[in-house]
């Protein structure tokens, strides 16, 4: 049986009795005519009585039907698609997937896209509530779809639609706001499949309410396949777009340390990046900075071209050690969430650097130590520690970001293994050669056919002959972070470095293009001098000459200090920087059970202030305690508070940011969406016009059919009335018997 969107209006069917009443009233209002030619009238009546009565009854029925159909059209009858639904034997389940990514906070005319989306949900609720019994309703936000081990948490799950349903839905909608996530539609589409099962005994209608930003649909294969799966199961799909136009938006897309050794009291450089997602250039953009909650001078950007990013560098100095919070903020625009960017800078008081020198006089260590920590007024934050190769045998290396080997003749296999583990774990290794080094050990112990730490095989010692006719510098460097600060044609420091001897690579050696091995500096004769490679998460830089000014004069050059500092900073960075934490992703940490208790408190920023949750860490197979904050709902700095064995609190901070790409407000229109969902049958609606066409959303609206029926009935009524001669002619009836005199 059909159901009605506005069932109370069915009382209007009583109006169908109006034609009967009019007929009865007309019966009482007969005109009275005293008539002479009665016999002809009686003959006519006798002849036509049955047919006239039939036509009049049909006319009355047609008029009653017309009134009834108009009432039914206003009441919006709906016929569910499935035959079972038609027969009234099955349920209809309405599933609303609501995009609550932060691009939904796009504001215009005092209302956000999210507000429009909630209105659309409310309208769907009204429609469903008007549809009668046997209906259930599920509301799932994108950000609540289970991913990464999280449970799916719908706001309403298979809620029975009863008289209180709309009130409950409205209360739920009041609590819903755009999140700070960049959640897309794939997860919720997956989640409803898992959450609701096959559902063979019910008709399902899925409403995907979103802003349909281009970014989320650039690779639509996943979405298309999931929608096609749903469609194959007979699910009706309705895609409701809540955005009417694209608006310009600026976003802080990056806030990071750029270079240098991080230590207390050391001046550091950070960079902030602002991207303009609009179609017009943004001028005089001011980025407000905060350092540990204290305002810093703002960074001003003259112009951010349309569709481009601009990076600005600024200097920070953290006087004390610890995890420091840096925040960047833009002035308000249509989307607020991406106007903020947070960074946590872990600042140690000092950074230890291990120098392992194999020579007796340890000249290399001396010059390296001098370059790492020159002393005097110059503070680098580095604390060099000089050890012999034996140190590598049985000491943990994790405390050192970077280890320097200089003129090491031989290392035990254990030491080599320890070093490899250290670099593979993310450490940096600088290898300086020297007179004590032997090609045999270097090749067999450190290169190992390309599997070891050394980036290249060593052929043997070689001398660089002095060419007095050629004034070319001995060093020819590529564009590389280590040499970049000394680059440029006017910079003479590099040209002052002279190399006399070095370890040469075999003549036929060339860096494999597919490997990470890269020659970053060559000698005048083309022989590699400085070669790097990535090893696991860390890097190795091999300097094929001495650190001390024995085979070259670099150690005594002012450029050497700069080169070593840059090398330290370069090697201290991991090959693959840890992925930035985005809102919605979990925070995981592991710690030593010997030092910490298993209780962790997470303090997270929230809309209404900080929120604290307590977690018990779990001891896993690696003998480490693991704790996990499964969800991060807000951008900002989250803090994990660990309790040490002695009861002290050790706080670790994590910067969680919004996905800046979500700030790209470019949207898809209906045709673009259709191109991406080719082959999937769905109905596309604009949220503003969704109400007018809501009929299609829960089944087949019979209004169209009724309209056609009404037209047919109106035409039939006209014909019948004309046939019954109820429509008087415009002019007097033409005389059938001439008005002239004689017949």
């Amino acid at each position, binding site marked *: 049986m059909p159901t009605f969107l506005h069932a109370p209006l069915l009382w209007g069917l009583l109006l169908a009795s109006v034609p009967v009443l009019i007929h009865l009233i007309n019966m009482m209002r007969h005109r009275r005519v005293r008539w002479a030619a009665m016999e002809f009238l009686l003959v006519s009546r006798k002849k*036509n009585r049955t047919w006239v009565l039939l036509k009049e009854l049909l006319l009355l029925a047609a008029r009653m039907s017309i009134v009834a159909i108009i009432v039914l059209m206003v009441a919006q009858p709906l016929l569910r698609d499935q035959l079972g639904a038609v027969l009234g034997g099955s349920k209809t389940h309405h599933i609303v997937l609501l995009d609550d990514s932060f691009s939904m906070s796009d504001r215009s005319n005092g209302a956000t896209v999210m507000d429009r989306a909630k209105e659309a949900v409310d309208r769907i609720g009204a429609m469903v509530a008007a549809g009668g019994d046997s209906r259930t309703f599920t509301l799932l936000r994108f950000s609540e779809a289970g991913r990464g081990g999280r449970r799916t948490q719908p706001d309403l799950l298979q809620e029975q639609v009863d008289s209180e349903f709309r009130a409950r839905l409205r209360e739920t909608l009041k609590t819903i706001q755009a999140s700070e996530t960049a959640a897309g539609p794939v997860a919720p589409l997956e989640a409803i499949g898992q959450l609701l099962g096959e559902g063979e005994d019910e008709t399902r209608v899925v409403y995907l309410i979103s802003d349909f930003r281009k970014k989320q649909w650039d690779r639509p294969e996943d979405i298309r396949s999931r929608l096609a799966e749903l469609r194959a199961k007979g699910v009706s799909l309705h895609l409701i777009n809540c955005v009417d136009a694209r608006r310009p938006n600026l976003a802080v897309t990056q806030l990071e340390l750029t270079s240098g050794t991080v230590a207390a009291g050391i001046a550091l450089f950070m960079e902030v990046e602002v991207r303009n997602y609009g179609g017009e250039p943004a001028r005089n953009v001011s980025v407000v900075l905060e350092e540990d909650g204290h305002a810093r001078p703002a960074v001003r950007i003259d112009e951010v071209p349309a569709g481009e990013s601009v990076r600005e560098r600024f200097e920070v100095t953290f006087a004390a050690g610890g995890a420091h919070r840096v925040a960047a903020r833009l002035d308000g625009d249509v989307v607020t969430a991406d106007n903020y960017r947070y960074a946590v800078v872990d600042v140690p008081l000092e950074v230890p650097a291990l120098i392992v020198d194999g020579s007796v006089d340890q000249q290399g260590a001396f010059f390296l130590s001098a370059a790492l920590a020159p002393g005097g007024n110059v503070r680098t934050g580095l604390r060099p520690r000089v050890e012999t190769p034996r140190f590598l045998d049985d000491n943990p290396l994790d405390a050192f970001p970077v280890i320097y080997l200089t003129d090491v003749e031989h290392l035990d296999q254990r030491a080599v293994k320890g070093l490899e583990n250290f670099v593979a774990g993310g450490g940096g290794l600088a290898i300086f050669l020297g007179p004590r080094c032997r090609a045999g050990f270097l090749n067999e112990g450190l290169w190992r056919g390309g599997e070891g730490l050394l980036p290249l095989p060593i052929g043997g010692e070689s001398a660089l002959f002095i060419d007095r006719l050629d004034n070319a510098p001995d060093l020819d460097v590529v564009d590389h972070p280590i040499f970049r600060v000394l680059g440029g044609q006017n910079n003479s420091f590099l040209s002052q470095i002279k190399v006399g001897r070095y370890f040469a690579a075999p003549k036929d050696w060339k860096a494999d293009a597919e490997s990470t091995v890269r020659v970053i500096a060559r000698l005048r004769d083309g022989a590699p001098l400085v070669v790097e490679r990535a090893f696991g998460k860390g890097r190795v830089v091999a300097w094929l000459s001495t650190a001390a000014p024995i085979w070259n004069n670099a150690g005594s050059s002012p450029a050497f200090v700069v080169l070593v500092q840059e090398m330290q900073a370069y090697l201290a960075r991991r090959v693959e920087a840890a992925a930035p934490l985005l809102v919605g992703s979990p925070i995981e940490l592991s710690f030593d059970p010997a030092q910490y208790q298993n209780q962790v408190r997470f303090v997270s920023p929230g809309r209404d202030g900080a929120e604290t949750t307590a977690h018990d860490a779990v001891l896993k197979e690696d003998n480490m305690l693991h704790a996990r904050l499964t969800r991060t709902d807000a951008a900002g700095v989250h803090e994990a508070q660990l309790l040490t064995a002695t009861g002290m609190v050790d706080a670790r901070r994590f910067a969680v940011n919004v996905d800046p790409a979500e700030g790209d407000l470019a949207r898809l229109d209906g045709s673009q969406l259709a191109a991406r969902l080719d082959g999937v049958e769905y109905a596309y609606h604009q949220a503003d016009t969704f109400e007018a066409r809501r009929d299609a959303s829960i089944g087949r609206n019979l209004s169209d059919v009724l309209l056609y029926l009404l037209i047919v009935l109106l035409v039939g009524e006209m014909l019948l009335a004309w046939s019954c001669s109820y429509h008087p002619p415009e002019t007097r009836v033409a005389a059938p*018997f001439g008005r002239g005199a004689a017949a």
Partner: protein
Amino acid sequence: MSDAQRFLDPEAIRRIARLELRASHVVEGFLSGMHRSPYFGQSIEFLQHREYTRGDDLRDVDWKVWARQDRFYVKQYEEDTNLRAALLVDASASMSYGSGPLGKFDYAATLAASLAYLILRQQDAVGCMTFDAKARATVPQRTRRNHLDAIVRALDGSRPEEKTNLEEILRHAAEAYPKRGLIILVSDLLVDREGLFKGLRLLRSRGHDVIVLHVMDDDELDFPFSGPTRFEGLEIDHRLSCNPRALRQGYLEALGAFLEEIRRGCASNRVDYVLLRTSRPLDAALAAFLSKRMEVRKK
């Protein structure tokens, strides 16, 4: 509309209250429309010229002939044949219906008075009978000019009331006007047709020439009613509530059959038949009479 027709228009006639004035108005109007003065003699039909002899009325001298031939000729008219006409006017209840300026009975009475006036002006004798179920007033045939007053009184004194019984009436007329003459029946003929035709046959068998002037109202011929209507029979005790437009076609078919039956019945009895609408001028009836008058004279 010509001047003559204007005089004959029912709307104009309605404004004249007295029947005798109506009659003179109609007839003079009708005759003036035919030619200037055809009735200057004692008869209405010119026959031949005859040479003047002493004693002839100087008014009969044709001065135009004298002017051309210098001889006196007098005009000779056809001899007065003493035409005896009888007007039978239906005053039954059905004649009371009327939708236009003149009801059927008013129209019939005006027509009868006009014919009487015309006949009397021709020095013919005319009588009159009004009837419904039976004869209500009978005026004998006379030729006197003032006889019109008696006829008008008979017409004025009649009010349509009862049913018609034409067979009886025509039989009665045959007896009331035994000498052969012209019988003019003015009626709506809403009667038993068999009785009507019997009566007409009777009149014809007595040697009467008969003219039937069938008076019908526009409403009866066109049936223009619309909207819920309750019809109450004037002569038939029957009430019918209906949508008249639904029955119109059937009504018109029945009416057409009726008119055809009347027409055929009259033709078969060699009775002149003229259907008259109450909304139309009376000239058709007068012309029909004059045509018949000429036939009678020729006989």
